[in-house]
């Protein structure tokens, strides 16, 4: 019975990824319905993890009442549940340590203010700026970027980074990243993850476009991408010449079309996720 619950959860997780994700919409992206794309992407990434977690918790809490734990399928379901819980825990610990490592690394760089934004300056000629951290990320900029961009373009970049801070992107993507890593064995994990990362950037671009000229922001983005120093090892990307528009093209297109998505997951999204708690409802009825 318990093993059946786990198998059902796995089947639902698989079905959710296969069915709920309209692959066409990801492979031929359009700027229409970004809010819908954002919400369904998060649900498709997060729901399988939550469903498997609640199923594992339900199985373990029922098994702990001494029912056939040490016989055949009972033992298998018990072990599978523990395996998933421990995988989740180890993934969480690994990501937390990585986050802590990144924040500690940043503390070595001097803190200052640029155009009214508190930030850390990395003494490097490469062009890089990012929000790094969790709930309260730190703005990090290389000296190279400060030297390379004039005041207006720099303000555009900082406005984009401010968008990441306002939406707490680093915090939410810390959790989404854990869900992504836990479901690498499910179909479309990578597609979903990349799409959410792109939407996150489009949202930060849109936030910036409310404060600075979107054309200036588009030019800054292209300028930073084209700078010769970006061809360093960690920025090497596999170029694909396939038909779908690249991530950069989509970001620029969204800016030039004046797309200003708020990308709000909201209570509507939370309600759409509520069904993942169903496995827990069988626990009280367990004899």
């Amino acid at each position, binding site marked *: 019975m318990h093993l059946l619950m786990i198998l059902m959860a796995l089947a639902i997780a698989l079905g959710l990824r296969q069915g709920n994700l309209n692959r066409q919409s990801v492979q031929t992206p359009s700027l229409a319905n970004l809010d819908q794309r954002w919400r369904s992407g998060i649900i498709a990434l997060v729901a399988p993890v939550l469903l498997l977690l609640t199923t594992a918790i339900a199985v373990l809490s029922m098994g702990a009442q001494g029912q056939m734990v040490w016989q055949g399928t009972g033992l298998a379901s018990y072990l599978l549940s523990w395996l998933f819980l421990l995988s989740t825990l180890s993934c969480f610990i690994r*990501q937390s340590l*990585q*986050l802590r*490592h*990144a924040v500690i*690394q940043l503390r070595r760089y001097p803190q200052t203010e640029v155009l009214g934004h508190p930030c850390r300056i*990395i*003494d*490097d*000629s*490469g*062009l*890089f*700026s*990012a*929000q*790094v951290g969790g709930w309260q*990320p730190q703005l990090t900029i*290389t*000296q*190279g970027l400060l*030297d390379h961009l004039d005041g207006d373009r720099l303000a555009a*970049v900082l406005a*984009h*980074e401010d968008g*990441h801070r306002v939406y707490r*992107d*680093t915090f939410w*993507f*810390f959790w*989404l*990243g854990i869900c992504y890593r836990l479901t690498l064995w499910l179909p479309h994990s990578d597609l979903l993850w*990349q799409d959410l*990362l*792109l939407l*996150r*950037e489009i949202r*930060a671009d849109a936030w910036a476009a409310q404060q600075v000229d979107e*054309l200036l922001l588009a030019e800054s*983005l*292209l300028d*930073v*991408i*084209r700078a010769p*120093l*970006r061809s*360093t*090892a*960690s*920025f*090497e*990307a596999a*170029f694909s*010449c396939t038909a779908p528009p*690249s*991530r*950069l*093209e989509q970001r*620029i297109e969204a800016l*030039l079309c004046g797309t200003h998505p708020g990308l709000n997951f909201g209570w509507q999204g939370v309600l759409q996720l509520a069904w993942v708690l169903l496995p827990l409802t069988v626990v009280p009825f367990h004899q």
Partner: protein
Amino acid sequence: MVPLPDHRPQNLSLGPLEAEILEIIYDLKEVTVKDVHDRILADPDRELAYASVTTVMRRLTRKGWLDCDKADRAFRWRPRISREQAQMLKSHDRLQRFLAVSSPDVVAAFADSLDVDSLDRLDAIAQRIQAVRRQREEQS
């Protein structure tokens, strides 16, 4: 801002004696082993064999930090990159290492490797932006 040098030492990490000898070479611009040895022994509390200095300078040459010329039966050593360039390389290396272990979950960058595109596409995007700018200027 110092640009990154074309040449890059194979190994940027230096031991304490290597770093000390490299500093002396930066100060003196061009040295023989004797110059370095004399400079270290100028401190009465220090002891260091001549052969040890030779070994370290050969190691620095092997790592790509120094050039060695033989002139007038004496080996003369020069730094291959300036002190500032070395500092820049170390910073750059730190940043690259930081980026290599950082994932996009907790690093929300303005532009990262996912935004890099082929040159053809970059040109097309640039033209698109220019077209919009021209259109805007015509309207105003």
